[in-house]
């Protein structure tokens, strides 16, 4: 059993979400400013950060950051391979591994993309994914591949369209209260959702995230040190990444199970190691590159089944402060801004520090899901309590 938690987040920084290609700052500068912001909140000198972790083809490798940060000693630098945003919570698992093993003491997990200075990160992310077997047939975009997987989720697995709509509407609803969210002024009515521009059937405009220029960083350290540094440490109960199948990997749409999110394997590991389960989670920050994958994630994480997805995933259930399963309380990837999932981890910390624009009353635990319905995905579970006890099951 992993409890009590050995690692905690002590600070975060997040740039504004700029429209793609319009960041006023170069990518590395944007990232350095986010790291500085996180270090200030943590009450540490940025030069004391000794570990650097990112994921999915990030171009800002740790050693390149040590110069401008004045890093005193570099002890850990790693990237979660593959899966694009699937590694977003996996990067948190790397930080956990580094700190628990004693390899490093203060680890920053980060993501940065600014097309204006570094080209399109998504191009780098998908470079290895969309090979000849896709492009010869006119497929070269995540919307198309996720469209294929979502179509089977709807038509074969029987997930109702209303579940996808509820995820989009809950996201925009939360963005409406979030001053910095890109979707703060969008009122996503049923009509607006249903009649939105078609992107790649079944994906419509409001099912689809749009990449922003942005950078975000979270500073992690040992739970022991966090308690000294911060009045509101947010404990990392566990994190995991990976996948399992009968067939998994980059398999040109031949992976199996096809519409399972790859969340099942990391979810099973964190539930087993923490002794907690879906009933113990107060808020969920889902990865919503498109609205199909998070449905698959919620099924694999144990929050619903394919059969109950329609009744569980309703707008009323998914919104703070009254819903039973509030999701994406900053607006998330769809409506706060898209930074390959890093914004979700930041919002998890924000929510548990009581700083969210959509607070969930009494929230004690928050789960972050990274990059479902891809060949690799990840999960992280945070809490205000280093050793939360499972809730008694009522049924």
């Amino acid at each position, binding site marked *: 059993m992993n409890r009590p938690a050995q690692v905690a987040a002590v600070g975060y920084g997040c740039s504004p979400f700029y429209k793609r290609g319009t960041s006023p700052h170069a990518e590395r500068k944007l990232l350095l400013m986010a790291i500085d912001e996180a270090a200030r909140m943590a009450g540490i000198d940025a030069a004391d950060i000794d570990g650097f972790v990112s994921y999915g083809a990030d171009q800002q490798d740790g050693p390149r950051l040590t110069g401008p940060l004045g890093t005193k000693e570099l002890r850990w630098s790693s990237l979660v391979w593959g899966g694009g945003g699937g590694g977003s919570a996996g990067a948190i698992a790397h930080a956990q591994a580094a700190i628990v093993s004693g390899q490093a003491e203060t680890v920053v997990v980060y993501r940065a993309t600014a097309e204006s200075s570094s080209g399109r990160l998504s191009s780098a992310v998908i*470079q290895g994914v969309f*090979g*000849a*077997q*896709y*492009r*010869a*047939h*006119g*497929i*070269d*975009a995540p*919307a*198309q591949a996720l*469209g*294929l*997987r979502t*179509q*089977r989720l709807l*038509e*074969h697995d029987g997930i109702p369209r209303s579940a996808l709509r509820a995820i989009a509407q809950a996201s925009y609803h939360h963005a409406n209260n979030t001053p910095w969210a890109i979707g703060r002024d969008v009122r996503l009515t049923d009509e607006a959702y249903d009649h939105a*521009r*078609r*992107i*790649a*059937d*079944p994906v419509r405009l409001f099912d689809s995230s749009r990449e922003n220029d942005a950078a975000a960083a979270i500073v992690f350290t040992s739970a022991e040190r966090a308690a000294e540094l911060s009045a509101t440490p947010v404990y990392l109960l566990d994190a995991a990444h990976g996948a399992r199948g009968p*067939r998994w990997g980059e*398999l*040109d*749409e*031949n992976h199996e199970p*096809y519409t399972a999110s790859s969340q099942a394997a990391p979810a099973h590991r964190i539930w087993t190691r923490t002794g907690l389960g879906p009933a113990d989670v107060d808020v969920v920050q889902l990865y919503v590159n498109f609205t199909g994958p998070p449905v698959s994630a919620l099924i694999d994480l144990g929050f619903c089944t394919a059969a109950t997805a329609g009744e569980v995933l309703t707008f009323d259930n998914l919104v703070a402060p009254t819903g039973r399963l509030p999701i994406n309380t900053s607006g998330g990837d769809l409506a706060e801004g898209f930074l390959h999932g890093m914004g979700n981890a930041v919002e998890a910390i924000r929510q548990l520090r009581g700083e969210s624009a959509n607070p969930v009353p009494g929230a004690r635990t928050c789960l972050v899901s990274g990059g479902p319905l891809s060949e690799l995905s990840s999960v992280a579970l945070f809490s205000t309590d280093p050793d939360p006890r499972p809730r008694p099951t009522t049924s």
Partner: protein
Amino acid sequence: MATERDQVHPFEARVDAPYWAALGEGQLRIQRCVRCLRWCWPADWRCPGCGSYDLGWPEVEPVGTVYSWVRSHLPFVAAYADLVPYVDVLVELPGAGGARLLGLLTGPEDALAIGAPVRGSFQPPADRTIGLPVLTWALDRGDEK
């Protein structure tokens, strides 16, 4: 033309080169382990079932069923822009252990649904298909040959 991200030099050194070469000759060939007879798709260097590196390329009839589909409304690939909106189908091949292939759907779409039978046609290399021979698919309505 295939762009540099598709190139290993030469193209014939790719693990799936026999697939493309066969399509150019009007044949569909899918990789299969010679030792344990497991279908291996997409092609790779090692059989995930038995670990053998002895992999063959038996011919398979280009017929299957729609496993899923997507209709693209934006010109995600410039060479397909004039076809927008177009449907790609993911086809499951019962004759190759359920291996799945992507391809453009041509002809009537009214019977398009998961599970619908489809038949492939061999197309010569074209600019649209990054210089590769491909299969396109049509719904097999049973009343035609």
